């Protein structure tokens, strides 16, 4: 699953550590999310969407080829 976290974070001038603190996760989680290595839970996706002020589907792009990991 692709995402626009890096782009949206950059637009809001947030560092990875600041974003991590806002949603109470470790910086490594943000790094993994931005690299697309880790698919978050619905709760974390919702928190990210709230921080960026946009719907979840604008933060995460769910492709048809995505399988359950």
């Amino acid at each position, binding site marked *: 699953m692709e995402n626009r976290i890096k782009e949206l974070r950059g637009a809001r001038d947030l560092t990875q550590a600041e974003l*991590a603190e806002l949603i*109470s*996760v*470790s910086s*490594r*989680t943000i790094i*993994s999310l931005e690299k697309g290595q*880790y698919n*978050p*839970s619905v*709760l*974390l996706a919702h928190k990210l969407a709230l921080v960026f002020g946009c719907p979840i589907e604008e933060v995460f792009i769910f492709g048809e080829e995505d399988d359950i990991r």
Partner: protein
Amino acid sequence: MQKNIFAYVIGLVIGIVLILLAVFVFTGSTTLNGACYGIGAALIALSAGFLIGKSIIKSAETPESLKVQAVEVNDERNIRIRERAGWNTTRIFTPILCFLTLASALIGVELYVTLTACGLVVLLAGLSIGSQIYYDKRL
């Protein structure tokens, strides 16, 4: 956490009592004497290690470090890593344990060794089934 500390204090006390029993009471019986020394020493090492480590960590704790610690513990990626690591360990360890049990039976080691290994296999299977039923109801 308070419960953990209490459990380790109890472990430490039991360990000391076992060592004292080995030194003063079960001096004649070598099996019982050895078991008391072994279990007692293991309990003391485990409990004292935890309690000393905890006191060192506590002396260095600040509100900021506690917050970071809480984030690290509750971080969902870390939780998933722990779950996968545990699952992988069990997946690898189970066939190894089964093989060792079978090998111990075939090469004719002492019966209690084979029975202990069998007990571990049964315990592992029981825990696995129990966990599956528990999480099947909870999740």
